[in-house]
């Protein structure tokens, strides 16, 4: 049984290594400025922890097979030197890893607002995403969802018709962004907690009702990407998604113009 168990542990370890090296499914193509750094962090983690995993399983397999024929087990209660040694070693590895990752989090969440960042308000509603742009005046109009929200009349967010700042607001069901331009998302939710997850941008942030949460990123590649909900929000959770369309600066300006032109009422296009 000893041999079988040790062999199984080795085979399991090899299978796990093969799974991760071949990785038939893996990170999506990185498409934001923060993605390469995050991928580097994740891969470093996987190498480091993967190494410890292999070491742990192999040592376990080895120790299960170290037999002392005819002599009885060693009457060994422990060894404080060893104890302190390996505690210090593993603490050093873990804390080094912890501290080395701190900078990345700091950069991802730092509060310094890019002066030129494009602001888009993202609202999660069971089971739909809405993206609101401030329009030419650069200001978002007032929203009072309980009072004005009429999804069937083209005003799902409840823009106040009496607020002039809201007249030119654009509400879209697609998140259109100019490439290489910093974006600041302003996350809200109308009913329950949702979470914006754009895997290609390596971006995830909850949208919590009653809160106004900001998050920033810069898309770096033109293309279409999927935005999904990653916080359980009800029975349509699995299909609560939107498309992120990253386009050139000119195309973005053209899109904005096409959305504003000839509009009288705020609301969905």
């Amino acid at each position, binding site marked *: 049984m000893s041999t079988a168990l040790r062999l199984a542990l080795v085979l399991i370890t090899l299978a796990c290594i093969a799974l991760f090296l071949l990785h038939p499914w893996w990170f999506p193509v990185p498409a934001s400025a923060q993605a390469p750094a995050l991928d580097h962090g994740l891969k470093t983690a996987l190498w480091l922890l993967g190494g410890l995993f292999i070491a742990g399983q192999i040592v376990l397999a080895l120790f299960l097979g170290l037999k002392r024929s005819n*002599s009885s087990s060693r009457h060994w209660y422990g060894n404080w030197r060893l104890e302190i040694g390996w505690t210090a070693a593993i603490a050093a590895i873990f804390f080094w890893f912890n501290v080395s990752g701190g900078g990345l989090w700091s950069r991802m969440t730092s509060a310094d607002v890019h002066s030129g960042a494009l602001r888009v308000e993202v609202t999660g509603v069971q089971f739909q995403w809405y993206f609101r742009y401030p329009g030419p005046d650069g200001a978002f109009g007032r929203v009072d969802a309980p009072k004005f929200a009429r999804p069937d009349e083209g005003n799902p967010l409840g823009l106040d018709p009496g607020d002039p700042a809201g007249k030119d607001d654009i509400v879209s069901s697609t998140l259109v962004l100019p490439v290489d331009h910093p974006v600041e998302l302003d996350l809200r939710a109308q009913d329950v907690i949702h979470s914006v997850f754009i895997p290609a941008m390596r971006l995830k942030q909850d949208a919590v009702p009653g809160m106004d949460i900001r998050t920033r990123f810069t898309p770096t590649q033109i293309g279409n990407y999927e935005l999904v909900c990653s916080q359980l929000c009800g029975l349509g959770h699995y299909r609560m998604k939107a498309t992120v369309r990253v386009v050139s600066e000119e195309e973005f300006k053209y899109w904005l113009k096409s959305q504003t032109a000839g509009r009288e009422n705020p609301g969905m296009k």
Partner: protein
Amino acid sequence: MQRSLISAHAATPSILRRYVFTTDHKVIGVQYFFLSLAAVLVGSFLSLLMRIQLVWPKVRIPFRGELKPEDYLALLTMHGTLMVFFVLSTVPQNGFGSYFLPLQLGASETSFPRLNMAGFWITLVSFFVLISAFFVPGGASLAGWTQYAPLSALAAAGPGQGMGTDLWLVSIGLFCLGSVMSAVNFIATTLRKRAPGMRLMRMPLTCWAWFVTAILILLAFSLLFVAAVMLLGDRHAGTSFFIPGGLIVSGRPVDHSGGSPLLWQHLFWFFGHPEVYIAVLPAMGVTSHLLSVFARKPVFGYRAMVGASIAIGALGFMVWGHHMFVSGMNPAAGFAFSTLTTAIAVPSAVKTFNWLGTIYGGRIRFATPMLFSAGFVSLFITGGLTGPLLAQPALDAYVHDTYFVVAHFHLIMAMAGLFAVFAATYFWFPKMFGRMMNERLGALHFWITLLGAYATFMPMHLLGLAGHPRRYSALTGVQYVAAMAPLQKFITVAAIITISGQIVFLVNLFWSLRKGPAADANPWHCTTLEWTLPSPTPAAGFGGREPVVTGSAYEYGDHGAVEDFVMQDAAPKTGASAL
């Protein structure tokens, strides 16, 4: 002693008093064991339905037809709740603990036998209340075992968010009550009922684990009880603890204002993270104990092990925020929780080193309990090592709420936890039922479960790294998720095989109950006090005899005697003083 003699004399109460409404901690332990067995069977069956619905949505379930998205979410909620509460928080602690904590301490009774009994009956009622949610209009809650508000606070937020969620909250409230009662009993018993000579530092590591876990339960479940009452208040009494203003649900304005959804998350995880250790500390205790028994060596670093258990218990209350890195909590708080979480990885690693130290150079007996204990160590290493990655806010943000996390907690809490439960079952079965379990079936069960656990949960890491969110009831909603269907199918097949393999365990269990070979008093040659009693344990426990403890719990190895172990109550050698 006087009292136990009298009660033994006045014995032969009715069958009902002996086996049903009993204050005998041994029977209560067995009752908890079978309650958890029922819960784990239901919970596993629900996960099978989920896995099948996910990859073959067109399959018609007998009596139910095709499953809808809300069915999937109800299955998911009930699976998680049953497994976390009624299996992992019940059998390792209240099942084996109720039975063996007093016996290992040398006591025939717990400090509060009636509290012990009440704890079980409240837990049983709580179980039926939970299951009944399947049969009410709207079905069971679909908000997951974490019940995030305001999804859980508003009946209009989905089917199952009405009475199904009320029943969930009542069930969990009752469960908290029962657990706290039992925990108080465990703490008092450990502090007051130890036999002469059983100093704290002579206690088996199982007792240490049950003791520390009881303190965790007392603090954590009290808080969850309060949170559940608050949420019920929001639902029915017009309070707004968790519901902010300005909400519209299903097209209707919600008449609440001023609450905070994050408050629920703080309260829930302040319970929820210690809960992870409530599940795994007893499992660690069992593993430490069994590795020593089957390697025929003392536990390596007994004092370090006790220290690590206490450190894990204390730090367990300071890491809850790592569940909330992307919740909207201040990112600066993320740093603090990240560092504290890294800190808790250290005593966990110390335990792993000491387990390896314990088996090093041992004359290992590969009986079924040892196989499962070795499996525990392997799974603990595998599941544990993704912890430091998840403790980093930046990295966690990407894999948070994906299958990567599902893989992590299933390997370390669910699988490792269950391996310890299986090990404990094969190990203590002779003492509990007076018969041995079948070793061949035990080994077969082990192989299916070990390979199945890895085959099921390892590939989930890849799903998570590729961005597959958890709690999706169908793969068809999102393109890149749909592309991962082949791997999901592989996982489903692995899960079906693994769960079907548990039939081997059930057959072994029920066959051995009736037909297993009779066990002698100490079949594994252990040192601890429960093995000084005949098998099965007599109703009176130690009877009038009070054991006197003379040594540590782990005197294995060469002592120059015929046997390679020394019982804890062995007469001291000449010259050595007993106390």
